[in-house]
């Protein structure tokens, strides 16, 4: 994983396996020291992009990388893409945005649940509410349940998060 000397700056860093996690004790320790020296670069990724094995990204310092992981490996928040004497590259997951919807009654909950399943939305449940992971503009989701919302059978709960 060491970048060969003379690596041109416009050449991709090839990431063909993950070095480890920044939560790992020893690795975390090393990263901490490198952060002081200013040699840790960050790649910020959308949740959706974290599921890809292949992906071209650019770090916050402008270093281009081609991530090309084996099918058995998966990116995660804090994954270390590169770690050598001069430089480290770490993944940061951008926070997933959720749309929180509250059905007014049991029959409304059935309809909302049906819509979410039929549209293959990624959801989680909290109390009687459904939270939808936003992988497209928020309005695109609201448009799909606009009748339920217009009739007051489903309301949008603003989470502020």
């Amino acid at each position, binding site marked *: 994983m060491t970048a060969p000397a003379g690596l041109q700056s416009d050449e991709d860093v090839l990431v063909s396996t993950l070095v480890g996690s920044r939560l790992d004790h020893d690795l975390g320790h090393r990263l901490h020291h490198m952060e002081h020296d200013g040699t840790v670069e960050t790649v910020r990724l959308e949740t959706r992009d974290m599921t890809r094995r292949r992906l071209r990204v650019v770090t916050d310092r402008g270093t281009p990388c081609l991530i090309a992981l084996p*099918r058995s490996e998966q990116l995660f928040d804090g994954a270390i893409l590169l770690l050598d004497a001069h430089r480290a590259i770490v993944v940061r997951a951008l926070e997933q945005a959720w749309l929180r919807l509250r059905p007014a009654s049991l029959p409304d909950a059935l309809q909302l649940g049906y819509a979410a399943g039929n549209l293959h939305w990624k959801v989680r449940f909290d109390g009687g509410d459904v939270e939808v992971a936003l992988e497209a503009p928020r309005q695109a989701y609201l448009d799909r349940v606009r009748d339920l919302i217009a009739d007051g059978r489903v309301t949008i709960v603003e989470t502020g998060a």
Partner: protein
Amino acid sequence: MNDLSPSRQPVPPHPANAARIGIGGPVGSGKTALIEALLPVFQRRGISVAVVTNDLVTAEDAERLRRSGIIDPARVLAVEAGACPHTVIREDPTLNILAADELDARFPGLELVIIESGGDNLASTFSLDLVDWWIFVIDVAGGGDIPRKRGPGVLQCDLLVVNKVDLAPHVGVDLDAMLEEARAVRGGSPLLATACRAGINIEAVADAICAAVLIRR
């Protein structure tokens, strides 16, 4: 050079397995035609490619590619999708994953596996467990209002290809308006207009694939 220490030669870094891309879209939009147009381009660029096709209950598209002479027939595998073409690319892509694994094993140094989905509707999308990046192909003859229908395939794909632009004048479609609308519903995500049979803009599609998932050369 018959050097006894070949490990000293700088070996260009190589990923463990091939990149996987998906090509989906409605029946007859030109998915196989796009692959047929891309294969010679990749060959010229020295990129090692294999293909997995998905048909309902036959291997029609695989046979067409094998007979085409533009790819080694052994590099084309067929997966029968049964009645539900979207299931094998999204909910349960096991069969396609196995086919791609098989191609990786058969052809060391393979760089790209193209998976063609069986023709489906505007709602079909690929699981990112199966592919790293995917194209959705719609065509001008399918109607200028397709982008406006905001199908998940059209919205979520990494690259939208609007094919058969040569047919626009014959089917009464205002191509510029269609492309404009497609750009708008996709919030500016990439889009290319092609005519696969005439070979228009195929290089640009190949460039987009290379930029997204392949090692720069």
